[in-house]
């Protein structure tokens, strides 16, 4: 599908320029990000290294005891290939201490807690290093709501939030992300053998084709079905987008005054920058 074949040279320039400009204009020169060993954070690390110099990029790998050891190995590989700073802060002690109080918690609660634990570490390092936290959620995940609110979805700046997983693969190859990371099965790595595509029930390639037409090109349901998409697939993805929309918005504020934040008190975040 041609729409998902983006101009990599242009995309690279836009995303590198975005990180450079948006970090520097707030008077900072450093960024911090979580490096999971997966492709999304690897790509963001490469973009940041090119934007600010690898010495200004601090990556933190935050494994839990059930994380696949290959993940940390891949995170190290990415850090060494991009030349960025790298440290490991395991989250097992904090997460286990909490769930001792709630031993019956299911995988979803545990996964969300891990994602939020990692978020607190990144924002603590933001203060420690005077560095902005870079987000690593791509457009596919954001639209499907396949992420943890205030966990991996939390960041100061997200360079890849408007590109689909299919673009992430292309740009990663263009920017020199190690092939082991590009070629492996995407996984949230919450339990052994987990893969995103198995959990979601469809492949990223399939859903990106649909999302690109549905969201970017605003095809109607009728047009999508006529274009060869299964009606049930179209409906289930539409429902996912709608039902996860709360994750893409600020908390809802009860309006009582004449100027309510974000409704009729409206300023760009780059106000004065």
């Amino acid at each position: 599908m041609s729409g998902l074949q983006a101009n990599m040279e242009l995309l690279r320039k836009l995303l590198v320029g975005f990180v450079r400009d948006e970090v520097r204009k707030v008077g900072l020169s450093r960024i911090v990000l979580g490096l999971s060993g997966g492709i999304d954070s690897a790509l963001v690390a490469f973009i940041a290294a090119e934007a600010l110099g690898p010495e200004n990029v601090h990556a933190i790998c935050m494994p839990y005891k059930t994380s696949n050891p290959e993940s940390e190995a891949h995170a190290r590989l990415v850090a060494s290939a991009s030349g960025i700073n790298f440290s490991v802060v395991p989250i097992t002690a904090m997460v286990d201490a909490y769930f001792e109080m709630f031993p019956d918690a299911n995988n979803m609660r545990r996964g969300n807690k891990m994602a939020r634990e990692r978020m607190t570490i990144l924002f603590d390092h933001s203060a420690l290093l005077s560095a902005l936290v870079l987000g690593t959620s791509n457009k596919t995940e954001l639209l499907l709501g396949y992420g943890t609110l205030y966990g991996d979805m939390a960041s100061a700046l997200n360079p890849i939030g408007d590109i689909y997983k299919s673009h992430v693969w292309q740009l990663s190859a263009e920017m020199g992300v190690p092939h082991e990371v590009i070629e492996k099965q995407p996984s949230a790595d919450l339990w052994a053998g987990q893969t995103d595509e198995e959990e979601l029930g469809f492949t990223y390639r399939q859903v990106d084709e649909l999302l690109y037409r549905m969201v970017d090109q605003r095809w109607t349901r009728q047009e999508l079905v006529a274009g060869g998409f299964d009606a049930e697939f179209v409906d289930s993805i539409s429902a996912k987008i709608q039902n996860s929309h709360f994750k893409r918005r600020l908390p809802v504020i009860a309006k009582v005054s004449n100027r309510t934040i974000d409704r009729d008190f409206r300023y760009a975040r780059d106000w004065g920058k």
Partner: protein
Amino acid sequence: MDFTAVLAQIKPKLGCVADNLKLIEEQIIKARESGADLIVFPELALSGYFLKDLVPDVALRIDSCEITRLIELSHGISIAIGFVEETDDYHFFNSALYLEDGAIRHLHRKVYLPTYGLFDEQRYLAHGTTFRAFDTKFGRFGMLICEDMWHLSASYILAMDGAATLICLSSSPARGIEGDTLGSAAAWQKLTSTTALFLNCRVLYSNRVGFEDGVNFWGGSEYVAPSGESIVRAALLDEDFITAQVDEGALRRERIFSPMMRDENLFVTMQDLQRIAQERGR
């Protein structure tokens, strides 16, 4: 007559009029020292673009000290610049001034305020109501602000009013990564070229760069000759300062080769537009 125009492809700071004025003054002095006759800045160069509720805070009256300063600077070089204008009745316009020899030669208020997609101008700004050509030291000009140029009638009116040079001040956001070049740049390049070609006029297009809340402005400021050919084009995405040698002979020759504007029948156009307006009003 021949003249030299600088297109100042700057990166204004959002809501920081004093900082932007300083940057603009530096650019004016640099252009004047280089021997340029005219400098063209982007839309809202004094304030930045995604202003939202900042509009009243950054707005300037025509008699403000900032505008007075720019008028003074126009003694050495003519200046086209965009800003938020505040009027006596407290309306706020997305405006452009043409300053020359210490005087305001023309004030254009943006007529077409985009309010769709990522744009929200009509929420915050009042719209202008006219397109008028005006005389300068370098011939008769017309000014357009960004979206104005996407309305064929705007350029047409200015050309029929005698403008041989169209200045377009722009803050155009980058979008569209599917093609060989940026989607919005490709669309604008077609537009400036076609407009020049249709109307046998030159286009001086000045677009800003930088990011505001993740939105990039793509630059690519250019001088398009009356043949539709882009003679000089600034960098894509980066700050730039380019000089266009505007050649009167090229305009004369183009109008001899392709005398469409000579043959343009204003009375046919008027008659049919009046008929259409009447029919719509029924």
